[in-house]
């Protein structure tokens, strides 16, 4: 799943740096994730994983790192089955 997230970050140019320089725990906001880009990125994630982020997940923390995103998506996919 983390690879798919990484691929999306690269494709959508979500951050200002090369995604390969980021670790799973790197702060995406420090890497240049803007509020506008974070929402476009969320929409892309919803589309890619066929999920919908509930209101309680719409905070900065959810999208702060690849690991955090992975955890949130896993939780949502887990809820679906």
């Amino acid at each position, binding site marked *: 799943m983390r690879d798919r997230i990484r691929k999306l970050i690269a494709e959508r140019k979500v951050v*200002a740096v090369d995604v390969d320089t980021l670790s799973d725990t790197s702060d995406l*906001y*420090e*890497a*240049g*994730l*803007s*509020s*506008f880009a974070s*929402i476009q990125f*969320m*929409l892309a994630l*919803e589309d890619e994983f066929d999920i919908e*982020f509930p*209101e*309680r997940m*719409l*905070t*900065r*923390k959810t999208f702060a790192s690849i690991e955090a995103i992975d955890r949130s998506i896993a939780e949502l996919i887990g809820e679906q089955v």
Partner: protein
Amino acid sequence: MAVPSPTIEILRPPAERMRSVAEIAARHSGDVDREGRFPQEAVDALKAERLMSVMVPKRFGGEGLSLLETAELCTILGQACGSTAMIYAMHQIKASSLVSHGGSSPWHAGFMRDLVDEQYLLASATTEGGIGGDLRNSICAVHVADGRFTLEKDATVISYGLYADAILVTCRRAPDAQSSDQSMVVVKRGDYTLDKTTGWDTLGMRGTCSEGFRLVSAGDAAQIFPQPFSEIAAQSMLSASHILWGAVWFGIAADAVARAQAYVRAAARKQPGSLPPGALRLAEVVAMLQDMKASVVAGVVRYEAAMNRPDALSSMGFAAEMNNLKITTSQRAAQIVTHAMLITGLSGYKNDTPFSVGRHLRDVTSAAIMISNDRILSNTSNLLLVSRFDTSLVN
């Protein structure tokens, strides 16, 4: 010079003290507006009444007032002089960031104690040449070496910059940081020089003296807030700004309505037994004022429900509601004052009658451009691509 420091117990209630200041502010409001000068008398009175530190927690020597209590103080002052009230609100917005984020940092905790002792006036430098009102991006960066920082900023608007005792400045966290990776630094008088770049000859809010400056500063690296500015912006600045600005605009609108009501009552006394023209419009404008009051109060209720929960404060739903509060109150204030002018007619349009509302009208026109409503709406429209409005009446 330190303001003599009576213990909190012998201070009168804050609202009472603010009413004393409001009398002074009202006396000078015409001159402040005409001359576009800093309201020195009223700010001196605010300091003498120890109203600068009301939000500081009691453990640092302040009075620990809530945002609602502070908003009420802004509204009282807003009825007397829009510029003075906006200065007071902008100061308290900076104070709220210290209160929310400074308690765990020894330097900022010490600074809060100094704020209480010295009754500092705090200013803000977020707006930057090349960036404008886009709070969440900076071009300038703070440089840190050997425990010291240096920071230069093309700060195109710093309200009362020349009269402030300290300025809270946003910047990139480091020279190699992205534009959205920001810090906030407290620079104290003595740490900085200001070279004036632009003036402030404006339509309204003429007394805020929001001139532009080239700011050059240096100091102890501990003066940089430990938290990223993104957290400060989301968790204290956004809500404090939009609630306290709304409180000021409400105060201005309320005074315009009071003048309109006085006008209608005077007309009614002259013609007993008949409803004067304007009475119906007065009823209408009072309903608008009540609606505006409800918006501000609902904003505070929403804030208090999220308060002390960083996640809730950083949520998109919260940001969208705080944005909407600003849009609504800024638009409402302008509508209400325009309405008051219709009621008062030429007496309101003239600058020298007891019913004048010209200054009010000019002051509230700043509301829509104080961070452009279009910018805020476009930000909210982005949030609404994923966030849904909370349809419950009680959050």
